[in-house]
């Protein structure tokens, strides 16, 4: 007997435990309860009002600026800490790779600076 057989049995039991009620519900609906879809019932908005404008509108994607600056000031810090801690033991290649990473982010900072994103009015 394979030592991991009980895991397979356990997994099978877990999946069937989840699927059996769904199967019973589906069988029940198929046997007794007819489907009754409708335009109002299938509407995707459910507060009682009709959705007024269409969903096909232009979204303003200015959030990407915040995304870039967040990446520079927050995510970079997370990577800088292990970089600084392991700095003495690093190979030249690893050091260069890390510097390239920092350069990429610094470039983003310079770009944001030049665009005037950092100025809060």
């Amino acid at each position, binding site marked *: 007997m394979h030592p991991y057989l009980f895991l397979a049995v356990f997994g099978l039991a877990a999946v069937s435990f989840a699927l059996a009620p769904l199967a019973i519900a589906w069988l029940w609906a198929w046997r*007794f*309860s*007819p489907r*009754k*879809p*409708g*335009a*109002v*019932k299938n*509407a995707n908005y*459910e*507060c*009682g*009002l*009709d959705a007024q404008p269409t969903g096909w509108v232009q979204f303003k994607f200015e959030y990407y600026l915040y995304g870039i600056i967040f990446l520079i000031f927050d995510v970079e810090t997370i990577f800088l800490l292990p970089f600084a801690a392991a700095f003495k033991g690093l190979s030249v290649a690893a050091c260069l790779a890390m510097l390239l990473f920092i350069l990429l982010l610094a470039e983003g900072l310079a770009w944001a600076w030049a665009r005037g994103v950092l100025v809060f009015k």
Partner: protein
Amino acid sequence: MEELYNWGRKNSLWPLQFGLACCAIEMIAASMARFDMARFGAEVFRPSPRQADLMIVSGTITKKMAPQVVRLFNQMPEPKYVIAMGSCAISGGPFRDGYNVLQGIDLYLPVDIYIPGCPPRPEALLEGLMHLQQKIARQRLTGPERPRHLDEKAPGEFPVPDFGPHDLVGPRLNKDA
């Protein structure tokens, strides 16, 4: 099997969480600790019609609100039930002759239980709930007596009235009500 089905349904009625007027306060009281609607399995007020199967129309239905109420009922999955709570939901109550008040939700929805009162006390709502449970327990699974949600030809949606310039426009469910 029918008994098991009905037993499960009648003891897990999930009302739609919405209140229209002062009756809603009594409905809230009925669901809270003192009157404790949880004893009847009906404490899980759902904020979405997709998850609810009981609509407690609790209060005055203005003509502006009526289309929304009907639309919410249409969005509830079958089997679904309606309790008209209070004289306003039954007939318009003291505001029956008002220019902006619907004279009973049964003009547009198939009401199962009427609970009179202005407002009905929580005990009355619980009594109505128990009557609804008895009604569910009596429903047949097959045959000509079977309820709406098991009948293929019975409508699943009810006509939503339009809020016109003077009055609600659109077909009524119950013309002589």
